[in-house]
C-alpha cells in the first residue's frame, strides 16, 4: 500500500504546472464554499445575538393556546407567572426573569397612525439587562411607578415626528374587547440602530399595561434572559414542573422563517458548489487521461511485471484522490485567508435591513466566521468528485494490453 502511495504521489508531481493549475481550481471551489459558509454564520451571529436582546429574552413562556394566535398577541393571562419568575430566578443560568404584557395597538399623533406592539415591562428588573435601557439617547428609561409614560425607539420617534415630552395617543383593547385610548407622554427614546424594529415597539410599565388592558395583576408572558446562549433547554427542563401546559418558546423557534431562508439557500448552494466542483473535476479527468496517454509504455511495463489491471486503476484513483487532497489543503488556506481578510472590515448589509422581519435585526456590518462550520461535508464532496472524475481514466488505464502498450513509442 505504501508503495502505491509513493508511486501515486510522485506521479502527481511529474508535471508540476499542470497539477498546480488543477489544484488552483479545486482550491477556488473550496474557498468559495467556505466564503459562503462564513457569511451565513456571520449572518446568524449578527441576527441571533440581537434577536435574543430585542425580542424579549432567550425564553418566553406563554399561556396554553397562545401560539395558535401568534402574531396577534392575544391578552391571554399566564396563570402562574409570579411563581415561574421566582423559580427561574433561582436557576444559576438565569440573569433576569420578568413578567410582561404584550398586545397590539396603534399609536397616533397629528402626523398619522402606526400599528405597534405595546409591551408592558417591569423596568426595575429589565433595566440591568435591557439593550434599550443601555442605549437611551434622550430622556430616561421607565420606572415601575410610571403611569402615562412611554419609552420608544428613535425609529418610531422619527416617523411620528415626536420627541421627549411630546404626547401621543395610544390605542389598544382590553380583555373585554373594549377600545382603550390614552394620551401618553414620551419619557425616553432609545436608539439601537434597528429602525424597523424600533418602529414596532412601545414600552410602558407593567402596572400601566395591566390597568389599561384590564388584566388585574396578571401578565401574558414571562421573559427569561440567560447569561449565555445555548442553555435554554437546561433551564426549560428545570422549570418543567411549573410549566404545565404553558407554551415555551426559545429565541431560535421564534424565527422559523430565518431558519427556512438560510436552509433553502444552503441547499441551493450545496447543489451549485457540487456542480462547480465537477467543472474543476473535469480538469482532473483531462489531466489523468493525458497522463495515461503519456505513460502508455510505463503502464505496459507495470502490466508486464505482473501488476493486475485492478491495481493499475488503483494507482490512478490514488493519483486523482491525492490531487483532490492537495487542492483541499490549498482551498482551506485560501478560504481562511479570504474570511480573515473580510473579518477586518466586515460586509455592509445595511441596505437589506428592511427586507424581512429578521434582517431588521442586523445593526452592524456582517463579520464572516472562518467558514469551517461545514468543512467536513465540503471536504467529502470535493474528494468524492475527485474520485468520480478519476474513475473513467483509471478504467481506461486498466484496459491497456501490456504487449501492445510496450510497443507503444
Amino acid at each position, binding site marked *: 500500500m505504501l508503495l502505491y502511495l509513493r508511486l501515486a504521489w510522485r506521479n502527481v508531481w511529474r508535471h508540476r*504546472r*499542470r497539477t498546480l*493549475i*488543477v489544484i*488552483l*481550481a479545486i482550491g*477556488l*471551489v473550496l474557498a*468559495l464554499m467556505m466564503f459562503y459558509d462564513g457569511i451565513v454564520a456571520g449572518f446568524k451571529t449578527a441576527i441571533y445575538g440581537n434577536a435574543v436582546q430585542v425580542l424579549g429574552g432567550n425564553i418566553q413562556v406563554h399561556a396554553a393556546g397562545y401560539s395558535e*394566535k401568534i*402574531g*396577534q*398577541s*392575544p*391578552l*391571554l393571562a399566564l396563570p402562574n407567572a409570579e411563581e415561574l419568575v421566582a423559580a427561574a430566578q433561582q436557576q444559576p443560568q438565569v440573569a433576569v426573569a420578568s413578567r410582561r404584557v404584550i*398586545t*397590539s*395597538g*396603534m399609536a*397616533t*399623533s*397629528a*402626523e*398619522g*397612525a*402606526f*400599528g*405597534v406592539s405595546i409591551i408592558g415591562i417591569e423596568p426595575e428588573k429589565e433595566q440591568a439587562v435591557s439593550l434599550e435601557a443601555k442605549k437611551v439617547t434622550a430622556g430616561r428609561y421607565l420606572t415601575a411607578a410610571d403611569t402615562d409614560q412611554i419609552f420608544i425607539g428613535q425609529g418610531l420617534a422619527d*416617523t*411620528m415626528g415626536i420627541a421627549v415630552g411630546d404626547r401621543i*395617543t395610544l*390605542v389598544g*383593547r382590553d380583555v373585554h*374587547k373594549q*377600545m382603550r*385610548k390614552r394620551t401618553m407622554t414620551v419619557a425616553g427614546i432609545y436608539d439601537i440602530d434597528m429602525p424597523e424594529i424600533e418602529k414596532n415597539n412601545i414600552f410602558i410599565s407593567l402596572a400601566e399595561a395591566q390597568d389599561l388592558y384590564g388584566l388585574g395583576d396578571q401578565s401574558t408572558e414571562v421573559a427569561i434572559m440567560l447569561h449565555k446562549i445555548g442553555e435554554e433547554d437546561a433551564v426549560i427542563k428545570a422549570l418543567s414542573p411549573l410549566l404545565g401546559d404553558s407554551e415555551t418558546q426559545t429565541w431560535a423557534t421564534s424565527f422559523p*422563517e430565518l431558519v*427556512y*431562508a438560510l436552509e*433553502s439557500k444552503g441547499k441551493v448552494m450545496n447543489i*451549485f458548489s457540487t*456542480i*462547480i466542483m*465537477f*467543472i*474543476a473535476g*473535469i*480538469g482532473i*479527468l*483531462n*489531466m489523468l*487521461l*493525458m497522463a495515461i496517454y503519456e505513460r502508455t509504455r510505463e503502464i505496459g511495463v507495470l502490466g508486464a511485471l505482473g501488476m493486475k489491471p485492478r491495481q493499475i486503476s488503483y494507482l490512478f484513483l490514488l493519483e486523482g484522490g491525492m490531487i483532490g487532497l492537495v487542492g483541499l489543503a490549498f482551498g482551506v488556506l485560501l478560504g481562511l485567508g479570504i474570511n480573515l481578510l473580510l473579518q477586518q472590515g466586515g460586509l455592509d448589509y445595511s*441596505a*437589506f435591513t*428592511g*427586507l*424581512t422581519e429578521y434582517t431588521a435585526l442586523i445593526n452592524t456590518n456582517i463579520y464572516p466566521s472562518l467558514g469551517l462550520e461545514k468543512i467536513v461535508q465540503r471536504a467529502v464532496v470535493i474528494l468524492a468528485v475527485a474520485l468520480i472524475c478519476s474513475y473513467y481514466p483509471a478504467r481506461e488505464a486498466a484496459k491497456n494490453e501490456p504487449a501492445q502498450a510496450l510497443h507503444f513509442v
Partner: protein
Amino acid sequence: MIHLIKMAFRDLGRNRRRSFFSALALGMGLSLLLLMASVIEGEVRSSMDLSIKLQSGHLQVRSLTYDEDKHSLAHEDLVADPESVAAQVASLEPVQAASPRLYASGIITVGEETAGVNLLGIDPDSDTNAPYRDGIVSGQYLSADDREGVLIGSTLAANLGLSAGDDISVMVNTANGDVDEQPFTIRGTYATGSPFYDESTLIMPLAKAQTITQAEGYASTIFVLLKDQDQADAVSAALKSSQYEVLTYRQMNALLSQIQGMSNGYMIVLYLIVLGITATVIINTLIMSVFERTREIGILAAMGMRPGRIMAMFFAESTLLTAGGIGIGLVLGGLLVMYASKVGFYIGKFGIEGMLLSDRIYARLTIESAIALIITAFVVSLLAALYPALLAARLEPVDALHSGN
C-alpha cells in the same frame, strides 16, 4: 485566417475526448450562470410587476407634503377633489386608467384577536383595481355604495380564521388625529400572489373610507396606470405642477433597484469565480497540447512560421473550444431555464412593503443578460489561452525539434 481555423479544428479533433470534456466544463459553468441570472431576473421582474399592480402603479399624484410611511390623513397632506384630478389625468392619451386611493392605518378585531392592517379605500369600478376584482377567491367584490362591506386578503383571513360573511370590528385613525371604530362585514377574500400584501391590507370602498377617516372629498393619492410603462417619465413631466408631487414607478420602487444593484455586484464576483475555474480547465488542455506538439511547433517555426502566427493558432483553438462550450452551455442552460420558468421555485412568505414578492419565483432570461454572459465567457476563455499561446510562441525551434516523442 480560414487556414488557421481549419488547423485549429483538426488539432482539437486529434484528442476528441479531451476537447469534448473541456468544452463540457465551460458548458456546465455557463448553464449554471444562465440559470442563476435568469432566477434573479425573474425575482426582480415579478417583484416589480406586483408592485406596479398593487402598490405603486406607473404613476402617482400626491400632495406635496404626503409621506407614504405615515399614512397621514391631515387634509393638507391629501389630494383635494380627487375625482376631478383623476378624471383630468385619465383624459391624457397615454393613460390607461386613473383613480383615487385613500390609505389609513387600522386594527382589525375579531373575538380575542387583533391584527394591524393598512386600510385601503378604492373606487371598486375603476380598472386600476382589477387585481382585486379578479383576485376574489371567495365571496363577492365590493360595490361603490357599500357602506358596511370590506375585502380582506386570503392570508389574513386564514390567520384570523375568517371567511366571507363574518363580522369584524375595524379601528382606524382619522383626519383630526383621533381614532374611530366601526363594525364591518367581510364581503369577500382576495389573493394577489403576494402573501405579505394579502396579510396586511384591508380594502373598502373609497366613499366609506373617506367617511370613517373624516376625509370626505380627499384622497391620499391618484393611482395611475399607463398603456406603456416607458411613457412614465413623459406623462410625469406633463402632469408636473406646483400643486402636486408626481412620482414614477421607478422612484417609488427605489429600494428594489437598490437591492437589484447590490445582488448584481455579488453575481459578477460569482460569475468571475465560476468562469475562472472553467478557465483553468481550458488552460490545462491547451498547455498539454503545446507539450504534445512541441516537435510540430518546432517544425512550423523552423519552416518560418512567426511566433505571432503560432500564438494565433492557439487562440483559434481556444476560440473553437469556447464556441463549442458555449453551444453546450446554451443547450443545457436553455433546458434548465425553461424548466425553472415553467415550474418556478417556492420561496414562501418573503417580502415587505418596499419589495413585494410572490410566493413562487419563475426564472426569466433576458437577451441582454444571456449575451453579457456569453461575451464574458468568451473573453475569459481567450485570456485563458494567452499563457499556453505564449509558451508555444516562445519555444526555440532548434530545441523544440530535438525534443522527444
